[in-house]
């Protein structure tokens, strides 16, 4: 009991005994984890951003001018009952014209020509699909079936584009994963070497401890604690810096260039990232000090 207490005391004292190297390594770890956090956050926000785009796969079916109201209503009901479909909206010829001029205000001049004649735009059904995993093929089939109906004049589908977006999303998460891996590797490498340096630095001390009868774990324990603590404190500081950076930077930017304020809206920093940072930092600290010990704290005589 007393031995364990003394070991802990020893571990903490050691950290302060080697202020310099620990301060340095702690700074490096915080820095690496901060970069990690920033990349992580960027990946996350790109993910959210792209998610917004890809959530809706839409198809627009243009109706023939001579399509009758019951036929149209029939189709709407049918589509609404389909499990793949999320929403169906009917757009009349007039609505289409209004929407068009709203969407392309530059073409006001072009449209002004037709002001008096009836709307040149066809009525349409806008169908939004539910997007779950890989039901794209079913949706494609459904779209083709609807298209063949006699009241449909043509269609417009953003399915290809949705696929592309999903791909980009996948690509970005792979890049993020890749980058995270590299950064984790670098963090581990640094902590591993810091512990190695620490062991090297305290070689004499360790040897003296052994010579006066210290058990192996009594010597190892402080290093493990130290590694974990370095990782932990480093990640907490990185988290705080990340938070500060994401909060302060947009404010600064908004102040300097208030036009682009909306562009860099970091409002929702997921709490998740902090937890991940801290777990990661502590874990890296533990594991790499453990490995470093195993490799470098070999007994002198064998």
């Amino acid at each position: 009991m007393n031995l364990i207490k003394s070991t802990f005391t020893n571990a903490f004292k050691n950290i302060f005994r080697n202020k310099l190297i620990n301060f340095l390594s702690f700074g490096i770890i915080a820095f690496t984890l901060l970069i990690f956090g920033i990349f992580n956050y960027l990946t996350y926000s790109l993910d959210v951003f792209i998610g917004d785009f890809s959530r809706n796969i839409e198809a627009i079916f243009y109706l023939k001018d001579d399509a009758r109201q019951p036929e149209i209503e029939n189709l709407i009901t049918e589509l609404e009952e389909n499990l793949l479909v999320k929403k169906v909206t009917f757009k009349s010829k007039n609505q289409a014209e209004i929407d068009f001029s709203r969407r392309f205000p530059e073409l006001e001049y072009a449209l002004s020509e037709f002001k008096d004649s009836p709307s040149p735009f066809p009525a349409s059904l806008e169908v939004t699909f539910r997007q779950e995993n890989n039901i794209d093929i079913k949706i494609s089939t459904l779209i083709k079936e609807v298209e063949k109906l006699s009241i449909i004049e043509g269609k417009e589908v953003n399915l290809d584009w949705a696929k592309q977006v999903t791909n980009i999303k996948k690509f970005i998460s792979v890049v993020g994963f890749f980058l995270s891996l590299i950064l984790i590797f670098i963090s581990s490498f640094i902590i591993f070497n810091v512990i190695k340096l620490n062991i090297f630095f305290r070689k004499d001390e360790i040897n003296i401890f052994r010579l006066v009868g210290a058990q192996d774990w009594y010597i190892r324990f402080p290093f493990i604690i130290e590694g974990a603590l370095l990782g932990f404190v480093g990640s907490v500081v990185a988290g705080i810096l990340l938070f500060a950076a994401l909060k302060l930077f947009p404010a600064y930017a908004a102040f300097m260039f208030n036009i682009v304020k909306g562009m860099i809206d970091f409002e929702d920093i997921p709490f998740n990232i902090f937890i991940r940072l801290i777990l990661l930092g502590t874990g890296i600290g533990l594991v790499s000090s453990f490995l470093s010990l195993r490799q470098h704290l070999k007994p002198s005589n064998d």
Partner: protein
Amino acid sequence: MIEFYHVYKQYVKSQFALSDVSFSIEKGEFLFLTGASGAGKTTLLKLIFKEELPGKGQILIDSENTNLIPQKKLFKLRRKLGIVFQDFKLLNNRTIYENIAVPLLVRGIRRPTIDSSVNDALALVGLTHRKHYIPAHVSGGEQQRVAIARAIVANPKILLADEPTGNLDTELSIEIFKLFERINANGITVLIATHDDHLMQLFPRRVLKLDKGKLISH
């Protein structure tokens, strides 16, 4: 207590630091180890506390063959021993008090016990007034006495001292030797490596004499 059987030690090829050394020391003996510079005294002591391994031969400490002690159990051997190192081996980032406390700390002894033991040891070597100094801030002789205090603080079964009075004046050296005698009187085996012929004459005991790695008298 300490038995050497045909022990050889080679650091580099074709040069024996120890060659065919055999002797045995009884429990409770007080004896000297002597020999010219480079004769192998420190090497012999290092073999006893297994900082070095013999090239050939067997070493028995407390009837235990040191060759057979696994790394994990080595601390048990070391805890039987109190060692004064020739180069002191003090921790420079700790006070003298803390240095002397280390052997007790690693044994998991409680603070109050540690405190009284360390203070006793400090008094024995006359360093109570240097308690809170770090080793770099005391004189060479004072450092040597810290090393001696650390060796005796944990009540070892065997005391090994490598040149323990090299930095001490004659008067203090005699006092330290008297201290070793008192410790020996409590049944502790004491082996002292020394060059000091004068001191050995004042304390006539059995002498192991090395010459170029060979034991020429025992």
